[in-house]
């Protein structure tokens, strides 16, 4: 196993470098043969990395402790699914996973570009492959020579492995890390498109339809990866929240924010032909932040709860990041003259302005997070004092920025391109503003008094109303012309304009998530209590009574479970059973399993913190609206799928009658 895996990985490094040379050769005028060979090395790389990954997973499933990585990250007692997932739980395995998934994504992107017979696809292909293979050369080099997954266990082969870190022994392990790493990895494809456009000089708008799909996929995968992380933290870490502004979380959200700016601003270029340079810069930034994120999580330069895999590969990453940035920026300057924008705008109030403000606030948010994340390092370097920049900073700075973005999400899509007149503004905004004002004043009358909550709710409702208005207006127009029922018109509208209405559905999901964040941050209620059996505590509308505690042994862990009876407004509604487990081999580290009672309105969240012979201590939290975070996330995914779904084919209809003399050509 060790030898096979190591040989294959050295082979992949060779294939990647060879493919890179071939792809560059293929960019010449007579380079068709070399381009074909480079394409084959992209496919070959996918094959070889699949063999390497299958080999490692097989070694895990067979408990082959002769492989050091297997012995260090699994044992015989772990459930089979987690043994398989241990594949990406350490540094070497997660690098292999990164490289493997990139090879598969590259192969499918290259395949679709190869079959695309347009001139632009032909021109980009060799450079596109060269950029992908250059990234792969770095990762396969690390795998083959620096962070090798296939190394023999030093000394006699152990009878059992060390097992996975208890914090990772959760079903979340099967979905969060692979999704997040895949999200980081996926930005390589849009980045490679940008590099190909720059290198080939085809920097006009033609490359945008090619890159759009891949950028949306990367955006969705990274977003879901982040959300799954939030969900995991919420039900495993047991501090009552879903986002802690930890450096690793921050590094994972930064490329997503920059990428969000990118998928918005390419629309300006598509429609108006401007912002070419800016879009190139944005995608380079997004990719660099993805690499930075992988670097932070793997180097341990920042203190984090995610420090599962630390190593000495930091300098390699740093070198790679520098090469990426220097190379891309050089290309950008070289093509600067071709990236000049054409400019036409008739009013400062227009869709273009909304997009620019969107970009500004997304980047300001990215900057604020980046700055807060690295400030401890700067402080240490400048004044020799390690300060901490934690949640209070991020909440105070990012809260207003996020709310501004939600408001822009309502305003932007309703503004026409080029210029908006006063009449258009009134027609678009009077109704949503009135609806939001009405509902939020009713809520104010009903006890919503926190100023932040009032402003937040007003903004969310306004944006919600603009989206609903867009759907209703579109469906009405369609209904008027086709005579369909309202629902049928709504469906046909959404289906036929998936790109536009898919975007609105994504915005709808984001509003849901914003409301969840507002509710759970501002109306979070919690108690830390110590209860003897039979004692009860009131938290909000709930009364929680501690019944007793029991212990049992399950596979390789000892579980302590507390049983609590919950009543809501005086009526018994069920039991909650939070637990704490200690795994064999990790006696010093107990893991928490939170008991959560979820409703559309709020979560009741109970953590067992500790106990002695007479009593047990709990953290009891009432977290309003949290479920809407997950529902909103699902809506966002649905909207993304819809906007990527191919449009139903349209049929042309012959126009009847004679063409009158003196026809004017109507067009832009």
């Amino acid at each position: 196993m060790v030898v096979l895996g190591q040989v294959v990985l050295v082979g992949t490094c060779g294939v990647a470098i060879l493919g890179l040379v071939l792809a560059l050769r293929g960019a010449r005028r007579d380079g068709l043969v070399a381009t074909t060979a480079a394409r084959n090395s992209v496919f070959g790389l996918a094959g070889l990395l699949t063999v390497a990954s299958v080999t490692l997973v097989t070694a895990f499933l067979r408990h082959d402790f002769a492989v050091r990585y297997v012995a260090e990250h699994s044992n015989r007692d772990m459930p089979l699914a987690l043994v398989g997932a241990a594949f990406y739980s350490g540094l070497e395995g997660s690098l292999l996973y990164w490289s493997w998934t990139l090879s598969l994504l590259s192969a499918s992107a290259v395949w679709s570009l190869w079959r695309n017979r347009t001139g632009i696809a032909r021109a980009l292909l060799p450079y596109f492959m060269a950029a992908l293979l250059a990234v792969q050369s770095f990762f396969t080099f690390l795998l083959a020579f620096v962070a090798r997954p296939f190394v023999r266990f030093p000394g006699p082969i152990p009878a059992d492995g060390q097992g996975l870190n208890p914090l990772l022994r959760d079903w979340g392990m099967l979905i969060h890390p692979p999704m997040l790493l895949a999200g980081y990895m996926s930005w390589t494809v849009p980045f490679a498109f940008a590099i190909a456009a720059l290198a080939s000089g085809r920097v006009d708008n033609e490359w945008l339809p090619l890159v759009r799909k891949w950028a949306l996929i990367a955006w969705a995968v990274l977003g879901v990866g982040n959300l799954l992380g939030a969900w995991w933290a919420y039900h495993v870490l047991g501090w009552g929240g879903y986002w802690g502004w930890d450096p690793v979380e921050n590094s994972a959200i930064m490329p997503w924010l920059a990428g969000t700016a990118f998928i918005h601003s390419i629309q300006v270029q598509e429609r108006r032909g401007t912002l070419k340079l800016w879009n190139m810069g944005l995608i380079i930034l997004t990719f660099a932040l993805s690499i930075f994120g992988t670097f932070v999580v793997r180097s341990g330069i920042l203190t984090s709860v995610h420090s599962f895999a630390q190593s000495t590969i930091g300098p390699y990453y740093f070198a790679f990041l520098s090469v990426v940035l220097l190379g891309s920026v050089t290309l950008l300057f070289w093509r600067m003259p071709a990236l000049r924008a054409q400019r036409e705008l008739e009013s400062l109030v227009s869709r273009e302005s909304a997009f620019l403000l969107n970009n500004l606030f997304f980047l300001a948010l990215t900057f604020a997070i980046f700055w807060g994340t690295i400030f401890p390092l700067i402080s240490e370097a400048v004044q020799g004092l390690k300060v901490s920049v934690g949640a209070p900073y991020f909440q105070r700075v990012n809260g207003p920025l996020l709310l501004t973005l939600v408001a822009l999400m309502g305003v932007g899509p309703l503004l026409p391109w080029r210029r908006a007149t006063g009449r258009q503004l009134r027609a678009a905004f009077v109704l949503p503003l009135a609806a939001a004002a009405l509902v939020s004043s009713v809520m104010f009358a009903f006890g919503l008094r926190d100023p932040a909550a009032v402003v937040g709710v007003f903004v969310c409702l306004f944006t919600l109303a603009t989206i609903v208005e867009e759907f209703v207006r579109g469906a009405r127009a369609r209904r008027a012309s086709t005579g369909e029922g309202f629902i049928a018109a709504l469906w046909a509208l959404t289906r036929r304009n998936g790109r536009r209405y898919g975007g609105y559905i994504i915005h709808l999901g984001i509003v849901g998530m914003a409301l969840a964040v507002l509710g759970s941050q501002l109306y979070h209620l919690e108690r830390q209590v110590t209860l003897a059996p039979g004692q009860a505590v009131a938290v909000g509308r709930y009364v929680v009574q501690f019944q007793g505690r029991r212990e049992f042994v399950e596979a390789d862990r000892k579980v302590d479970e507390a049983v609590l009876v919950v009543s809501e407004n005086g009526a018994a509604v069920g039991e909650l059973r939070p637990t704490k487990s200690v795994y064999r081999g990790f006696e010093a580290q107990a893991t928490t399993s939170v008991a959560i009672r979820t409703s559309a309105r709020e979560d009741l969240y109970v953590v067992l913190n500790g106990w002695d012979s007479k009593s047990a201590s709990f953290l009891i939290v009432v977290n309003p609206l949290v479920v809407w975070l997950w529902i909103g996330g699902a809506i966002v995914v649905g909207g993304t799928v819809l906007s990527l779904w191919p449009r139903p084919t349209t049929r042309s209809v012959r126009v009847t009658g004679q063409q009158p003399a003196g026809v004017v050509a109507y067009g832009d």
Partner: protein
Amino acid sequence: MATKRRWLIVAFALAVSSLAATVAAPGPVRADRLDDETRSIAKELRCPVCAGETVADSNAELSVQMRGIIRQKLEAGESRDEIIDFFVARYGDQVLASPPPRGFTLGVWLAPIFVVLGGLALVYGVLRGWLVRRAGEPPPPDPPWARALPPPDEERLERELARFRRETARE
């Protein structure tokens, strides 16, 4: 008479629902105000022995003790700032979960504000540059597609569009 009764019903319904909302609205339970205050202060302090957790969230022994101290001091009538200053005097500025807005660490707070202000100026500048028409110039003529069609053409366009939508919808 009838209208008056209707108003009474509406007023009654409003009163009942607002009462229900007040009862049901989440809000601090009065008896536990010290808990909330303890927690809110603990959130501003970093657990000195943990990796990136606040005193409020950490279950390290030291954090539990610190929460106890906060509560005692609150019971003794000390203010929020006095309590935080007490911990800063003991552990230094590093104990704060976010750096204080003074001296060198003021930079962490100011930089994002400058970025937003600078960005706004930049966006304004870019948009001004894009403007075709500067202040004082007459508005440009409407592009051909924005001009109204002669009535017969307009009518025919509507007719054909309606037919097109009908036929495509039937598929």
